[in-house]
């Protein structure tokens, strides 16, 4: 399946891009995060991040499906 990953803040800086398309077979969010974490040296563990799927907050257990837009959100520092 095709998944679009959106990168924000430190994750955008480290990956060097705001988003990317990936081709996956494993529907696990955690497996996806571990692959990009290893690739870009993201400092956060999976559980330190919030997850958005198609612009809505999601549980960490939600299975991925074709066409999803996924964002891994570092702790927010607004205000």
């Amino acid at each position, binding site marked *: 399946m095709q998944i679009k990953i959106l990168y924000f803040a430190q994750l955008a800086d480290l990956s060097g891009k705001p988003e990317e398309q990936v081709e996956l077979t494993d529907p696990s969010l955690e497996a996806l995060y571990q692959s990009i974490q290893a690739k870009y040296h993201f400092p956060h563990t999976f559980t330190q991040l*919030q997850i958005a799927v198609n612009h809505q907050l999601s549980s960490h257990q939600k299975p991925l499906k074709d066409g999803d837009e996924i964002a891994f959100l570092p702790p927010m520092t607004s205000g």
Partner: protein
Amino acid sequence: MKFSLTDQIIDPTALRAKLLAPAAGAYCSYEGWVRNHNEGKDVAELHYSSYAALAPSIAAAIIDEAEAKFSIEAALVHRIGALQVGDIAVWVGVTAHHRGDTFLACRYIIDNVKHRLPIWKKELYTDGSAAWVENKHCGCTDQANLEHHLLHHGH
């Protein structure tokens, strides 16, 4: 519109004027200002970035929660982009019949904004360095949510 993101200077006078109502007796506002220092470093500038497709629904949820808990009307604006020392990063305004609710609701909104609104701050220092500053705690919504994560992920 109760929430907006803007890359323009926030004007609290104009925002306050929109909340004026003849039945309201109390107004509490909060502003977060860009400070010239943080954790011992001299701050030159802040860059705020947002997840603009998610922020409005989160902000609406926070305001709805505050309006359900308290008898108030509220508005919220957050700045994004490059901010200078003294600029307003976030503004919250709350009106009510009575003052107690305005304080409680204004604090509820800003506390939740800090933890839940998908906006991130990069600090640029006068020595040329920069950092994505994170609070010491998890960015999870609340302690119950954090515990949920811990239980389900063994981390």
